[in-house]
């Protein structure tokens, strides 16, 4: 359990208020997506950590989650965080939330993200995420901001992504490739 100091810098967990009460701060610290073989497909960190710490956390967490049996609880206590994870086909979606967060709603957040991916890619599978990882990030960034849900309507998120995609200049404009 040692060496967790890096984890709570900047994110904050319990603050002691001026009256001396412990104050709850709700925050998602990071989200990881990894395959059944332990390959990392997506990582989004909402707390500042060094590369080394990130690698260490990723390695340990992937090991811990992959060791869980199929019918087990989706929540586990790891270091001083709660980990909420769910497996969709060959990918594990893993969120780290702080002690006082509502685990069930986090499961819903994960589910909503999967639905968004599904709608965007059309029956999404792991390959889509591997070959279009930047799109996966864009979608995540339209849905979550700073670790919190920013748009609760599925439709609106997808609309925004669509619009942003339209803004993307066509390739010939910046590769200077002549269009025949």
């Amino acid at each position, binding site marked *: 359990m040692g060496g967790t100091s890096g984890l709570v810098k*900047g*994110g*904050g967990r319990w*603050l002691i*208020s*001026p*009256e001396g009460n412990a104050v*709850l*701060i*709700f925050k998602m610290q990071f989200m990881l997506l990894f395959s059944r073989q332990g*390959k*990392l*497909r997506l*990582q989004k*960190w*909402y707390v*500042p*950590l060094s*590369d080394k710490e990130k690698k260490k956390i*990723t390695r340990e967490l992937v090991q811990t989650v992959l060791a869980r*049996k199929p*019918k*087990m*609880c*989706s*929540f*586990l*206590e790891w270091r001083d965080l709660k980990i909420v994870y769910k497996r969709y086909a060959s990918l594990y979606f893993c969120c780290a939330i702080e002690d006082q967060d*509502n*685990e*069930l*709603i986090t*499961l*819903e*957040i994960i589910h909503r993200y999967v639905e968004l991916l599904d709608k965007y890619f059309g029956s999404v599978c792991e390959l889509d995420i*591997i070959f279009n*990882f*930047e799109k996966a*990030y*864009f979608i995540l*960034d339209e849905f979550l*901001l*700073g670790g*919190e*849900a*920013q*748009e*609760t*309507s*599925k*439709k*609106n998120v997808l609309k*925004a992504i669509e*619009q*942003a995609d339209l*803004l*993307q*200049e066509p390739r010939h*404009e*910046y590769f200077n490739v002549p269009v025949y």
Partner: protein
Amino acid sequence: MLGYPAHFGQMECVRMIASPRYSEKRVGYLGAMMLLDEKQDASLLITNSIKNDLSHSNQYVQSLALCTLACMGSAEMCRDLAPEIDRLLRASNSYIKKKAALCAVHIVRKVQDLGELFAPAARSLLSEKNHGVLHGAVVLITELCERNPETLERFRKTVPDLVQIMKGLVISGYSPEHDVAGISDPFLQVRILRLLRILGRNNEAASDAMNDLLAQVATNTDSTKTVGNAVLYETVLTVLDIKSESGLRVLAVNILGRFLLNNDRNIRYIAMTSLQRIVGTDHNAVQRHRGTIVDCLKDQDASVKRRALELSLALVSASNIRSMMKELLLFLSSCPPELRAQAASGIFYAAERYAPSQRWHIDTILHVLTTAGGDVRDETVPNLIQLITNASELHCYTVHKLYRALLNDISQQSLVQVACWCIGEYGDLLLRGECHETEPAQVTEDDVLDALETVLQSHMSSPATRGFALTSTMKLSTRITDNVDRIRSIVSIYGSCIDVELQQRAVEYNALFKKYDHMRAAVLERMPVIEKNSPGHTNGESAGEPMKEIQPPKVKQREPLLPQQPANQVCDLLGLLGGSEEPLQPSPAPGLSLNTASTAGGDLLDLLGGLEPTPPAPAPTVTVYEKDGVTLTLSCEKQSDSVLTVTLTASNSTDSDMSSFTLQAAVPKSVQLHMKAPSGDFLPARGAAKVTQLVVLNNPNKVNLKMRIRVSYTSQGSAFQDTVQIDSFPGLSAAGH
């Protein structure tokens, strides 16, 4: 980005962010979020770009900047850009407003003082219709209220507004945009509930205002799917945290009870988490569900088991201790290793508080030691030993049980340590073979010594355990009769052991055998009952420390008396000092012995004359021995019901001096003998001076008191020795045995 190193990309990101093309910006910002964080210097370089992009005409560019700021903005960046964010909070479209709100949240987390800046804007956002903006506003207000109690006070006025919004969500018809399995915008509902919790905490008025709403949500929310349960869960947490009326509390606990019976493991898990929070305040309500909780101990899932364990330990009370302990012990034998230590210490604590009887307590602790001995804390051993010494009627039972446990398994160090200690202390009870409480085993002295030797030699035993074993082997030398030689050989072997602690002990015990044999019985007699400093306290370091100190220096305690031996033995002591192999003496002793040795005799007597308590004359004296000029008289005094002080006085009526005059005494088995230091060992001729020896006898069983005394001295260069038996004691027959 898929887990491969990409440091070289940092400057590229900075360049791309500055580019006018959206595609490049998009990728550049993504790269920035991935590769840069506030610890990197390059992150400062993008501050300007972000600033510019925040005022960009294209909202998607603004959104990129906001997203990046909220993800990795450092404190300086936040300070710089806060006014911009505030502007965006007030005057922009809802797409940007919702993002600006969450960005503000990040800023407040980084730089708490800026909270004041955003409070007014946050307030006005609550009247927006857009769910995204509402959600962002609620999150922002939550953050502001948590960090600043004054802001909290101000925002209490928004409770009615929040209740309205919530009502709208719960009651209103189907809204396809925000619907999730029949619940309208559960994310927003949960956030509002959370904010209400913070606002209603410790405040009657606010709690009253939200009572109805909470009741409504609790009863109307559909709990067949996870999402419904998520909202119910948040409702329950809110109800339990604010000053809700009792009816509402009962409702909340009932919901938790329903959760406990749910098939879904996740739901059971969170039910137990919440029950844990209220077990202190609503103990009885939680007790009703004890059966289900105890069943969860047997669940396959480690998370559920952990929750169930914590909750079960919290539910133990005087009335259910026996049944709960059965379950907990069963759990301990099959629990995952990471929970063992917690389970063991929880069991000890519960046993300490609610033990119905001492025997049950000892049994429980022994059971835990057998199943999970490796995971218990260090103070368990002294605590248990203290418990055992206190339960004096159970000594026989305990030592039998421990002996059997020791034969079974010597790998659990705590158990082995306690077992060795008990065998050493109560070995005689073990060998006696009779026991009321459990089946006696036919144990011979060899068996016991075999067991102890196995512990000593096993590679599984830790050094502390071997120390325990060696000491108890030594103690047995006074409690058994036939195999003392075997003990001597064991002890002498360890005199050259590599382990310094064992070597020291062995050498001291060797010395005890060789030179101070007459003191051995006194040194190794039964330990007195250890006093508890703080009753009912598992972490009794008070009991722990004196225990630990009594053990090794037990032999040392006797040392200060040694220099007060007759002169020749003092010279022996000097010999020991000179030898320097045997670290027997603590600091006062050498000084004393050197002193007395240099002034041959007279000072010694004076020194010791002062020390020795002179018994008053009134006790009747009887001459018990008279031969070759040596006269020995005896007088006794009853100190208490079973304690008798006997004074032996010797005098020399011959014409030559006697030196090295020593008296040794032996008494029947059940009587305890304690010989004090003699006044000296030199008997000058013609009765010029006497030597007095005090003997304290403890006769608890009131047996017929007899004493055999051996007299030895040197006169005119030759050694003399004689024995005399004393069958009757003056003063004693009068008072009765």
